[in-house]
């Protein structure tokens, strides 16, 4: 491993939160206001994960009072405290950009139901 790769490897979190595109997640994001720190939660549907080494990001979309809001989080950022999966989604593509143009039932993602046999013991 050369030095540039070693520096990149240091930046990547050792334990990355596990989630997939289509999951509904709650992101705990640290906000620094002057000297005080607080954690803000942001809930929504993961519509994309972009892999770019250190700069790996994921996009979370939610509907806020009738307005679609999308926020992009860097996965390795120290400000992303944790990502909780609230509901797993059944999807067939890697990027759910089509959801932006859908309204009503079509903008929903079906829940992924995994049989107990398939679930690996964790």
């Amino acid at each position, binding site marked *: 491993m050369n*030095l540039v790769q070693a520096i*990149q490897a240091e930046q990547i979190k050792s334990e990355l939160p596990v989630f997939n595109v289509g999951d509904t997640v709650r992101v705990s994001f640290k906000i620094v206001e002057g000297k005080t720190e607080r954690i803000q939660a942001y809930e929504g549907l993961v519509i994309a994960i972009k892999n770019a080494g250190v*700069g790996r990001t994921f996009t979370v979309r939610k509907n806020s009072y009738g307005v679609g809001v999308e926020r992009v989080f*860097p996965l390795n950022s120290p400000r992303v405290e944790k990502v909780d999966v609230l509901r797993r989604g059944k999807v067939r593509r890697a990027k759910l950009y089509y959801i932006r143009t859908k309204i009503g039932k079509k903008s929903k993602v079906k829940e992924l139901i995994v049989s107990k046999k398939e679930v690996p013991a964790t």
Partner: protein
Amino acid sequence: MLGLIGKKLGMTQVFDPTGKLVPVTVVQVVPNVVVGKKTSEDDGYDAIVVGAYQKKKTRVTKSYAGQFPEGVAPTRILRELRDFEKEVQVGEVLDAALLEGVRYVDVTATSKGKGFQGVVKRWGFGGGRATHGSKFHREPGSTGQSTYPHKTFKNVKLPGHMGHEQVTVQNLKVVSVDTEKGVVLVRGALPGPRNCDVLVRKAIKKN
């Protein structure tokens, strides 16, 4: 002025303490040997001479090897650093620890060669319209007047060789200094290709 010879390894990104992703260039500090000293009495100015990348004495000409004091192997590159702020001895080896506590640096290197380029790329000329009967596309245009002065002045911007010249980028922020790995992370881009020699000096305009 404090400074070191280094090697540009390439660019990456790191998170700063506030969680922002910062673009950085990784500069490896190769062992810098103090080869000589210049003094105002003898040379008219104060400086130290540092060298990097040691070579066998049999691999260099005698006249080149003659510059080096006894006990110091000849080096591939030599750089002078004027008004060096730290007291050093000839033969001493400097490493990345020298740049600890330095907040901003100036970096000098030879830029990437671009070959023979026209005025649009080399000097940023606008060029003309591509279509609608235009016959003026990427030409330099007029280079002066007729009867008087009856010549083209020197330094008129024309096509020619671009790049492969010494470039200094000033006031680059030092993101971190890692003495263990012997690397310095400098914010932003540096001139030159990967694996080129760079001279990292403490910034003269900012500290």
